Each structure stands twice: as C-alpha cells, then as structure tokens.
C-alpha cells in the first residue's frame, strides 16, 4: 500500500489493517475522509458507514423542486455580472453577508440563512433524458437496469405501508419510477396541482353501498382465483386494490385539495401551477407523505434565454420561498429536506439566438431544511463559469450525502433482477459540511 500522509499523522500504517485507525480517521469528520479518499482511492464499506453516521440524520421528508430543462447557474444561483458570459441579469445581496444570487430571486434572497447553494455540481450527462435519469435515480442510465427514483428509495426506506396516502407523490410529471423496488414505490402522479384528483370519487350513479357490494364480489373472485391457481399474481393485486380503496376513503384525501387553503396563503405561492404544486407539496408533507416532487418546466432556453428565465425565476422565487417559510412556521423545515435543481446547467457562452445550450460540466443546486446547514455556499466555478474551481460535487456524491441526512445507508445492496446494486452509485463520496 502506498505511503499515506493521513495515516502517518495518526501514527499507524494501513498495512496493519487496523480497524481502529480507520475509525479514528472517520472520527476526524467528513472533510478528512474525503481528502483521504482522494488520496488513496476507495474506502471499505464499513468505514463509509462509520463516516455516514457522523452526519446527524434529521431529515424525514423531502420536497424535490425539479427545474425541468436545466437552468443556467449564471442566471440563477451563481451570478457573474461583469463577465461576458454573465448575461443580462444583475446580482443581488441576500440576507447572508457575501452571498449574492440573481436579482430575480428577491424573496429567496431573504431566506438565504436557511439555504445551502452548491455551485460546483458537475456531471457528464448533457442530454435531457439521460440527465433527467441521473438526477432522479442517482445513476447514469444503464440499459439493463431500471434504477429507483430518489422518491421511490425514500418510499421504500421510510414510507409506512399502513399510511393512507402514497409515500411518493409527483406533481407535474418529470420524475422517474420505482425501478427495481417495483411499481408500488413509483410516484403517484398528479398532472396539475389545481385539478381534482383523478378517479378517487365513485362513478356517477354508483352509491357507496353498491361499490361495497362490487368490492366484496371482486374480493371473492380474487380469493378463489388465488386458491385455484396458487399464483403469485393475486396477492399484490389485492394489496394494490386495498390501498386504492383506503385512499378513496381516507380523510387525508382533503390534503390534495389546495382550494381548502385560504386565498391569501394560496396567492403567496403564486398563481401558476408550480406555486400551486409547492402549496400541495406542503399540504402533503404536513399530513405525512414522505416525498413530493414538483416540476417547473421551461428551462430549456436555447433561444431567448433571458426573458424566459426572468419569468421562470419569478415563479420559482414565489413558490420556493413561500414553501420554505410555511414549512418553517409549522416547525417542519427542521426535518423536511427541500432540494431544487435541474438536470444540468447551460452553456456560459450565449449563443446566436440569445440562448444557452446544454452544459453538464457546471451547474448549481439549492438545498434547505432537513438538517442542511443554512447560509452557506459549497464550491465555486471559474470566472467565466466554464469549470468547477473547487469542491466538485456529482449527483452520486450529493445523494450519498443526502442519504446520510435521512439516516439511510446508501451503500446497502439490493437486487435488480440478478444484478446487485447499491442504493446510490458506489462512486458517491460524502459532501463535507452540507449538514449542520
């Protein structure tokens, strides 16, 4: 084994295979471990776990605000006014000294004390489908495996199967699916937050009694069929009908109806579908839903980047800031993680159509709540925004770290068909200092 300065400092050599040495190292905290990892490569699983336990697991729920299409970091959370790549927007001060974001986020600027901005996100996936897959599952697409969406992982790890509502709800599409965890962990998809939930009410003309009679008959049929065939098909069928039935009858169903909210608090989120989605997300996590995914589409600005991004920024600013305020005032922010990002960034150089193209090399992500340390920026990009200058963070890095924030060991192995697979890509390293 090669010379290692960190172990040298501890006065022990790696050749002794001393478990104690590793644990001591881990005890020094995330930063050291990452440095260590960079120096010698992979760390055994048991030391990874020892490290992960260093992150206090506070998060219990998650809201993922997905900026579909991929916004430019320069026009949002990593402004570079003055540089030709910086574009048309100015930067504005936030409530935290020294952290500046786009002038079109005045409301979020006030919440900076609760936000962490990661300015050094980087990936290799510059195609929408592949990028979307990566940010939702933590893996680059591989032909033979369907990975699970992060929401599905949370549903599997933290969801209570006895809960009336689905553990994972997706508003406005864009999320992935249950993958190797099966479709019972796929998101319950709602196209529009403002539309009534589909198919939860009995069809016109079918009374409750009539429905119960139908259900009783159906149950008999399925039980008989199950006995007759001894097939694995019947039990899951019954289970999913049971859950659908429970959802239809649940008093918690009201949480899906944002019109139950008074007009003033509704308006605070913005009158657009994204704002309504954020409101719905708050209502759902409030009653116990584990993960809500809300999409804001339109960031794929190959043309007319600036007017479009200005408009979208306003929408994001209202929805996200109000979500954070509402979660905080309800005492939910401390254990509800809010993640906001697209599938990649956009080219720093502005193209001939006043647009920016796909750019996975550098982009930003914003996090809040669930134990995330507020008021900080992690990583930075070069002056022209083209490269990550320090602390590069990949999606596997981020998800491994967030997993630790939820108390989930993301190195645990599951099986996708015959293939063993870890919850998060093994390449993921802990991001130091993300959690308080």
């Amino acid at each position, binding site marked *: 084994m090669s010379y290692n300065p960190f172990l040298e400092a501890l006065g022990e050599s790696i050749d002794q295979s001393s478990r104690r040495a590793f644990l001591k190292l881990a005890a020094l905290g995330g930063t050291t471990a990452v440095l260590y990892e960079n120096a010698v490569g992979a760390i055994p699983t048991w030391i990874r776990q020892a490290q992960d336990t260093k992150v206090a697991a506070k998060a219990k729920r998650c809201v993922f605000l997905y900026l579909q299409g991929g916004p430019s970091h320069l026009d949002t959370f990593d402004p570079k006014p003055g540089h030709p790549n910086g574009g048309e927007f100015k930067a504005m001060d936030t409530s935290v000294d020294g952290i500046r974001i786009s002038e079109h986020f005045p409301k979020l600027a006030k919440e900076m004390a609760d936000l962490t901005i990661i300015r050094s996100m980087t990936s290799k996936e510059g195609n929408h489908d592949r990028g979307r897959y990566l940010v939702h599952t933590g893996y680059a697409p591989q032909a033979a495996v369907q990975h699970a969406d992060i929401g599905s992982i949370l549903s599997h790890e933290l969801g209570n199967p006895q809960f009336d509502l689905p553990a994972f709800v997706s508003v406005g599409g864009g999320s992935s699916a249950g993958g190797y965890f099966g479709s019972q962990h796929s998101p319950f*998809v709602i196209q529009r937050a403002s539309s009534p939930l589909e198919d939860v009410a009995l069809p016109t003309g079918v009374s409750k009694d009539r429905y119960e009679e139908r259900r009783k008959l*159906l149950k008999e049929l*399925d039980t008989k069929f199950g006995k007759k065939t001894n097939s694995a098909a019947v039990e899951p069928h019954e289970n999913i009908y049971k859950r659908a039935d429970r959802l239809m009858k649940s008093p918690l169903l009201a949480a899906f109806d944002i019109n139950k909210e008074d007009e003033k608090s509704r308006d605070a989120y913005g009158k657009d579908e994204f704002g309504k989605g954020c409101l719905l997300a708050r209502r759902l996590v409030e009653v116990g839903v584990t993960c809500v995914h809300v999409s804001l589409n339109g960031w794929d600005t190959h043309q007319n980047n600036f007017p479009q991004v200005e408009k979208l920024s306003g929408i994001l600013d209202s929805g996200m800031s109000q979500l954070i305020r509402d979660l905080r005032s309800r005492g939910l922010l401390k254990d509800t993680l809010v993640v906001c990002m697209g599938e990649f960034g956009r080219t720093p150089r502005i193209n001939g159509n006043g647009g920016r193209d796909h750019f996975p090399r550098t982009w930003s992500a914003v996090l809040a709540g669930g134990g995330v340390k507020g008021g900080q920026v992690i990583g930075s990009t070069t002056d022209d925004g083209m490269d990550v200058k320090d602390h590069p963070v990949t999606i596997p890095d981020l998800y491994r770290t967030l997993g630790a924030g939820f108390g989930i060991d993301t190195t645990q192995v599951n099986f996708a068909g015959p293939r063993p697979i870890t919850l998060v890509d093994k390449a993921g390293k802990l991001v130091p200092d993300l959690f308080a």
Partner: protein
Amino acid sequence: MKLHQLSNVRFLTIFVAIAAPFAAAFQDNGGAAPTKLDAAAIDAMFDQAWTAAGLKAASPADDAEWLRRASLVLNGVTPTADEVSAFISDHSQGKRGKKVDEMIARAEFGEHWGDEWTRMLVGRGARMQRFDRNGFTEWVEEQFNKNVPFNEFTKNVLTASGRADDNPAVGYIEKWQAEPKDLAGQTAKVFLGVQIQCARCHDHKDQQWKQSEFNDFAAYFAMTNLRRAGDADGKPIFEVRDQPEPKRGKAVGKIAKKALEERAKKAKNPEAAQKMMEKAELTSATPTPLRPLAEGPLAMPNITEERNHSQDDTKADDTKDTQVEMSRREQLAAWITKQGNPYYARSVVNSTFARMFGYGLINPTDDFRSDSTVAVPALLDALAKDFEQNGYDYKRLVATLAKTKAFSLASAGDAKEKEEARESHEKMFARYVMRPMSPEQMFDSITRATGIDEVAEERAKKLKNPGKAKKGQMTGEKIAEMYGKVRQGAIRKFVTTFEDDESSEDISFEGTIPQALLMMNSRMITDSMSRGMTVQRVMERGNDKIDWVYLSILSRKPTSDERAKSSAFLQKNGGEKKETIEDLAWALLNSAEFSTIH
C-alpha cells in the same frame, strides 16, 4: 420474487448434461435440405428436459383457457364471447392447430407483433415525439402481416434512407437521431441480444465488451446523417442519408477527420461539438462486427475463425454483380443477417419465445453473456437454426411455438406446492407462466370485453365519408385519431416502468394505485360498460345472462359454483337489471384473472 433472481446453477448443471445429444442432431445433416422443425420435435425436447430435471408437466389447459391465451399472445387481445362459445363447443380434431393458423392470418397478428417490435426498437415513446412514431408503427405492422422474411425486415430497419414521409422505415434511425453510439447500443440489444452500452464510456472489469469494440461497432453508423428536409402540417420532416465514404488512403482519411474536428472546435454548443468529435473519431474507425462469445452455453467455436473474414465475405457476396460498394449500414445488416451469426437468430427466436411463454429460454432476453444459462439449450439452437434455414419465416416461428404442448399446459399450480417448486416448473416451462398483460393487451382487451370497440368501429364506419358528416360531427378518421389518443393515454397509465424510451422486460404483478383507481372509477371504464355492446347483448339473453358476462369478460363459462354465487349476487342487488349486470361485469373486469395472461 422474480424468476431470474433464482440461482441458475442448478439448472445449468442439469442442462449441460442433456444438451449435447440435441445439439449434435442439428449440427450436421450432410448437406441435405434442412428439415423443418415442427411442434412435435419441440415437444420431444421439452419432454426430455422435464424428465431430466425431474419435473412433471402440468395438466393441459382447457379449451377456454387455451383460446384466451392464444388470442392474447397471437393477436394481442382477448377473444370475443362468440368465438369462445363456438370454440368450446367445437369437438373436431386438431381445432387448436386450426385456430392458430386462423389467428396468424388475421390483421391483428401484425398489429400485435408490429406493436411489440416497434416497442423494442423505438420504445413506447415519451410524451414529446421527435419523430413520426405512428408512421413507423404502421410500416412495421405491415411487414408482419405480409410476413416479410425477418432478415429482410431487419435489413430494411437498419439501412433505410430517404424522407420519413416517403419511407417510414427510416423511423428507427430517426428515433435515435442518427447517433452512432445510441444506434449501436440499441441494435445490439434488439437484434443481437447483447448489452454493449456499458462499454460506451470506458472499459469495465466485469463487462465482456471493451470500449474499442463498442466504438468499432458504432462506426457502422458513423456515415449516417439526419437532416430536416422540410415541413408538413407544421411538423418537421426529417431525411436519413449516408455521406460518402472518405477515401481509404491514410492521409485523406486524416484530412477528413481533421476537418470535422475543426468544425467541432468552432461549434458554440459544447454538446454538439462533443458529438461531432465523437462522430469524427468513429468515421476513421474500422467498422467491426461483434466477436462471438468465447465460452459459456452461447459460445460458437466454429464461428471464431470466420470473424476476421466476415467483413470481406459479405462484401464479396453482395458486390459480385454490381461494382457499387456497400454502405457501412449495409455491411452491418449483411453481417447481422448472415447465416451463422452467433447472436441474431438466437436473439430473435428467444425474444419471440419470451413474448409467448412469459420468459425467454435465456433471461434477460437482451443480455446474452458468457455466464448466461439456457433453459433447454438444444431448443434454442434448434429454433435458431430452423429460423435461419427456412427463410426467417416469422409467422411460422410463432405458429410452431403456439402449437406445442408447452404452450397448451395449464398455468395453475398445486395449492400445496412450495414457491420454489412453482418457480422451477415455470422456469422450465413445465407449466404455463402466468403474468400480467402488457398495457397494450390490457387496453385492447378492456375495449373488447366491454364491447366498446364495436361501437367505436361502427361509428367510424358510418362516418367514413367526410362529405356525409353533418356539421360539427366528426369524421371516421377523426374518430380513429381520437381513439388512438385515448388508447395512448390509457396505455401510459398502465405503463408501470419509467415513462421514457426504455421498455423493461421485467414481469411484475404489482400494479399502481392510479391503475386500480382507473379500473374502478374512471369514466373510461364506466362509459365502456354502459355504452359498450356487452351489457346490452347480455340483457337481450334469456336465462344464461351470467354465462355471457363471464364469456365476454373472462373468456370462459362460470363454474356451477360461480354461477350460483353470481346469481345470488344479482338477486340480492335488485335482480337481472342493467345496473346489477354492470356490477358483475365490473367485478370481473377488475379481477386478477382478467388482468393476467394465464
């Protein structure tokens, strides 16, 4: 637990032992005209395999169960009540075989198998379509109904050029945006049953393909371009065309590559630049076929030597009469469809087998590896060889498999049987594998079971002539278009996998809550029941109403116990009126029995 999670070792040891005699039987027939493989020969192989494995084949499925299965597998939809009724009261000899031939001849055969292959080639299609998926699907369906030899079909898919509105076969290249690496991965997966994408970015220790091999294979698509050729109805029309091969001289090739690199450097969009660089790289690579696997049950040692010459061989074969050099895509198609290709015929028959029997002889069907295990290896080789030597006759392949004993076995297991025993029977096809319908089969069967398909067809026929349509009334075409949209929307709800271009081969019985809600409460189901012909026809019948509800929805007659229970249900809830019949129909339609192929 899914079948392919099981340990394969046990099966491997058993089957290595019995594989040899069969393989020998098919290896050398001394140059005589090849005999055609028939169902009886396949039955014999299965029998021997089951005996060797100590498995007892399930009892045969009854006529109704068999007909429903055949209809779903061959035509993609459950049979009509009339068809079931006629079939179970037909006592003539060989009626199952005749039924297979009848189903193979129906337009629904091409519609179903065309749908299946379209899905394999281009996916189900995300919401935003960049190409005319419908045009491509129709073309594929036509190929299957005309029974175009499968090797011809393959060649057409891989080598099509021209505008999409003139030649819908270009849809495959169009769908993958003429991206050499995407096309290489997809082509290997669909036609060859191998996953090479893993080697796209770098070499993996545990993968069998190297990045250089991936790139050399992708080079077959390096000269193919997609450009916008015009617009029609406000939608862009794309054209696929191959650029001329750069002159072979080293210096000239270098100059061509350099020019592309220069262009890439100037590109503002780094992604586009990267793609140009990749393509430039592949332009100068030598297109090379995939090597055969060196070991394992799929190894074909006699082909190994051939590999180095195969490229020249195909060129020599096809350019005898003409002096025209084959394009790279033509060379690829020639290699893939050349007799003795170690992957092609095996992969095609295996994918087809899996769609008929629930699992492939090798699983997953798109990931052949050195350590793959093959259930009944002799059968896989025999099917592949037969397919190759008898004109890649797809209808014959499907019909032969549908006439086997294995296809006729019951799907029900012994109630006391352990899960492991069930799985070992299913894995060896000693029992027919019960599985959920595909979303397409599900939607089409719902419309058939409720009789709403007839109503839609009638309306479409009446209004076929747009001149006759009253103002504000829809034309037949419009109705067909709307029906297509409703179908797509409903299918999307039944799709449990990721809503994008990958279609998972996993069999999973878990539905989703929205699916259950859709089946229980949606307007689609409620309207189909109240407006479809099924309940209406049942109401016109005498004292066999319950039988006809069962025949229409579950494609079988009720048992006497079920008849009595259903009768009691109707009596309790207001007698044999439309509403209560609908309640009964609702329960049958929502049952696990309806939503599965068994």
